[in-house]
Structure formats: C-alpha cells, structure tokens
C-alpha cells in the first residue's frame, strides 16, 4: 500500500501531522461516547422544573426501551428506509446500465446526470418543508389532482400512515437515486469491456449481459451501497422531523430512532437518550464492521471510497 521509505528520523512528524485529528476525535467523540454510555445507566431526567436523578438504575433504561419504543421506532425507520431503498437501487441499476451502454445513444446524458443528482444536494429540512406545503390539503399537488379530475376531494396525505411514510420514502428516493446511479456507473465502467464484447459475440441479449455479467461483477459495490444506505437510513431524521413537526404523526408511525433521540435530548431525559444512543452505537458498530471489511478487503476491483449512499 505504502511505498518503502527510510525516514526513521522523520517519524515524529507523522505523529505531529496526525495529532490534530486524533486530539479532536478524542475530545469531541471519545469523551462524549464514554459520557453517553455512563448516562445510560442512570435515571436522569427533568420532570417539570425538577431534575430527577442521577440515580444508578443499571440496565433499566435499556430494558424499558427494548420493551416498547425501540422495536416500534426501529420498525418505522426500517419501513421508510426500505420503501425508498428498493426503488432507489432498482432505478439506479437500470439507469447505470443505460448510461454505461456504449451502444445506446442517449441524448443529453450529462444533462440527465446533473438533474438526477440535484436533489441530493438540497437542504433536507427545506426540501421537507417544501414537500409539506406541496402535499398539504390545500397545496398545489392536491389542487392539481382535483383540477385534473383524478380525485374528487383533496387527499389528506399527512393524516394517513401510508401517505406520510410514502412521502418520506419518495423524498429519500429522490435524494439518493442519482447518487447511487453515479456510483454504480463508476462500478460498471470498471468492468473489463472485453467481457461484454465476448458476450456480444456469443449472441447474448441485453438482459442476459446485465444479469449474467454486470450484476455479479458489481455485487461488492451493491452490498457496499446497501450497507451505507442502511447506516444512512438509521440516521433518518430531517425529513420526517420536519414533515411531521417532530411528532412522527399520525400516531407516531413515522417517528424514527433519531427523532426519538432528539426528543429525549430536547427534554433532557439523559438516561433514556443514553441507552438509546448505546443501542444505536451497537447497531452502527456492526454495520461499520461490514464497511471496514469491504474497504480493507484487498480485492481485484478498484476500492475507492464510495460513501454516503444514504437512505
């Protein structure tokens, strides 16, 4: 990986150069992590103006969370993630295959790439605010649907579980399918073209080539995309928070894990926030391990950073 170099006398510079990173990480991540874990074992919250605790309660916070909130909000998060991820990966695969197919003449290739990536850069909170106004009962979407005669009266998107979840999923899809397309394009472009040429000589159809060559060869990138998207999905917050004004409505069916963490932090329930953080830490730790394995895996395929395929 690194070239051999005899510079023993320079070793201290290595430490000096990496010191800011590690000092910052230690202060702003390690200390908070330890403090978070410590808090998770205490009963420590605000009740009105009174502060309860901190009293040592062992694993009580963990048990309380696992009994009710955790499975429920994990399920919400998962449902909204999968509703967005499935179309995201399917559309991205198809688009990437088209964009990289040299025999296909797609006009305005660059224009399409630019446009489909655009939503990824939009401020998620403003995007959510926009969707809230657009899909509200008297908003433009309903006004268009009613005027076109598709529905007789406005659809109350935010009063149904499916409506709200679907809008969250739609936004996640829009924000991430362009990103995934571009990453998969890079992966497909890395496949040896002679494989396609040989397949073509043997009379393979487009779909045969896609399923028998492209798909198996980009499997590592696909699993990478899925894991990083899962990590992103786990962090889902901005969009449902703003769409539902932090309530996770209707009836807390769109409340995500981070929204729950946010509400515990806002109300200064340190015990519960701590226990929830530790659960999240464990889940993301497992996912991080997979990413680590994939990145350090010294395979033949180019392993560039393919980060951020979120939700």
């Amino acid at each position, binding site marked *: 990986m690194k070239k051999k170099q005899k510079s023993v006398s320079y070793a201290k*510079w290595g430490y000096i150069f990496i010191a800011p990173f590690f000092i910052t990480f230690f202060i702003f991540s390690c200390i908070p992590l330890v403090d*978070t874990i410590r808090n998770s074992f205490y009963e420590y919250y605000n009740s009105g103006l009174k502060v309860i605790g901190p009293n040592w309660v062992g694993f009580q916070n963990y048990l309380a969370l696992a009994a009710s909130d955790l499975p429920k909000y994990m399920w919400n998060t998962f449902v909204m993630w999968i509703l967005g991820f499935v179309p995201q990966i399917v559309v991205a695969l198809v688009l990437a295959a088209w964009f990289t197919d040299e025999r296909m003449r797609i006009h305005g290739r660059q224009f399409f790439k630019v446009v489909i990536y655009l939503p990824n850069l939009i401020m998620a909170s*403003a995007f959510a605010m926009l969707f809230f106004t657009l899909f509200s009962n008297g908003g433009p979407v309903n006004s268009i649907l009613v005027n076109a005669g598709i529905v007789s009266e406005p659809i109350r998107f935010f009063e149904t579980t499916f409506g709200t979840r679907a809008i969250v999923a739609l936004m996640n899809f829009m924000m991430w399918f362009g990103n995934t397309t571009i*990453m998969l394009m890079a992966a497909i472009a890395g496949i040896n073209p002679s494989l396609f040429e040989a397949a073509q000589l043997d009379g393979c159809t487009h779909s045969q080539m896609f399923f028998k060559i492209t798909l198996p060869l980009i499997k590592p990138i696909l699993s990478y995309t899925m894991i990083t998207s899962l990590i992103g999905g786990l962090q889902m917050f901005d969009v449902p928070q703003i769409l539902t004004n932090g309530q996770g409505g209707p009836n807390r069916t769109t409340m995500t894990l981070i929204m729950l963490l*946010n509400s515990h932090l806002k109300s200064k329930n340190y015990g519960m926030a701590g226990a929830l953080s530790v659960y*999240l830490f464990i889940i993301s730790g497992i996912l991080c391990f997979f990413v680590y394995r994939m990145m350090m895996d010294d395979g033949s395929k180019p392993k560039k950073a393919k980060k951020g395929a979120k939700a």
Partner: protein
Amino acid sequence: MNKKPTPIREIVAHIVLIILSFLCLFFFYILIINSSRTHVELMKGFAALPGGNLMINLKNVLNDATIPIVNGIINSLIVSTSVAAIVTYFSALTAYGLYAYRFRLNKAAFTFIMAILVMPTQVTALGFLRLITGMGMNDSLWPLIIPSIASPSVFYFMHSYMQSSLSLSLIEASRIDGSGEFGTFNKIVLPIMRPAIAVQAIFTFVGSWNNYFVPALVISTKTKQTLPILIATLRGADFMTQDMGKVYMMIAVAIVPIIVIYLLLSKYIVDGVALGGVKE
C-alpha cells in the same frame, strides 16, 4: 459485429429519464413559481405561471423579525466556509502524516480511522452536548466548526488521492532542497492535492450548509441560528396563519444558492461523486 441497438430500448430509456428528470425538477419549478405569488393567489390554487410578487415576498422575508433570515444566511456561510476549509486542510494533513511517514502507530491509526469511517455522529450527541455545555461553547458556532478537524471519510478520500497522485520522491527532493516538513506540506503537497481539495470542499460546504440535527440541539439564540433551523421553525404550530408566499420564498432562499452553485460546478461535482461521494 456492431449490431444496431434496438430503438425501442432507446425510446424507453429516454421516456424513463424524462419522467425522472421531470420528477426532480417539477417540485423546484413549483417552488420558484409559488415564491413569486401572493398569499391570496396561492390560496386560490395552483398556477403554472409565475406571479408578480417575487420582490415583495423577498422583501417580506428579509424584513421578518421573527425569523432573522439574513443572520441565518451569514451564520450558515460562516459555519460552512470554515468547515470546508478546516475539513480539507486537516484531512489532507492527517492523510499526509499517515501516507508519507513511517512510524510505529501508523498502521494502527489507519485501521482505527477506517473502523470509524461511517460511524454516525448522532450516537455521541448526548455526551457531545454535555461536553460543550461544560466547556461553555453551547449556543455558539464553534461546536459546529471545530469537531470537523476529525473527518474520517474526507481523510480516506485524501489518502486514496495521495496514493494515486503524490510521489514520495517529490517529498524527498523538497527535503534535499532544504524545505521543512510543514513547508513541504503547505507548498508542495497542498497544490498537488488541489483537485481533491476542491471536490471535498464543495461536498463539505453543502453538507454543512444543510446540516440540521446537531445545530438545532446546540444553538438556541435566534440570531445565532443557521438556515436549516430557521426553516424548521416555519413548520411550527402557526404554520396555517403564515403568508404562504413568504414561506415559499424562505425555502427558496435556503435552496436556490446551492442549486446555483451546483449548476455552475456540476461537472466537477458529478465526477466527484464517483470518486469519493458525499458524506454529511
């Protein structure tokens, strides 16, 4: 040998691409149209053409005392610019430290950063809030800027870039010429890293500009808030009583600058995604 592609497939591809592009652009189109219309016009229903109220809405937004958007823009600019500068400089510095020097903990340090590459920052938010409160840094912009010195994903991007584009013999040569280690980094390495720095600066700027979770927890004073927090306050209980023209205009103020930057730099950004991707 060069079989003509089936035109049906091309037609389908174009139709799908046009539909997806329409989906991506339509909502922004409505946003722009609606931010130019008055509240009364908006209440009457959707219109495909812009109204004449653009400047009045903009003026109303800029003069709104309850949502200090000008402060928000300034705060967001301060934070995002500082983060972009700090992230790229220190990530390059860290990557260079591990790339160019052999020392005992080199491998361990690299392994450690790779292990935390995609760790969400939210898991330590509780301790982070308590820490910065203890340090007296809560309700200020510092906690949004300083921690970005340690950005594993940008580090990894810089490290990969160095492996492909930075020759160690160049560093040797600069040493022979009598350059100090920091001098070599600042005068030789950084200029070589310019393309990587540009890509990551754009992404971290945008990521920081859009960041909502931590700033919303850290900052409580209105005039210190960044744009995403101000946008979120629109969604308060009094949403129904708002002047909708103003609401659309505020969203536009938060979104349009990024769209403009993106369109100007789209070529570099789209190419950069495949290289390193975005990570907020």
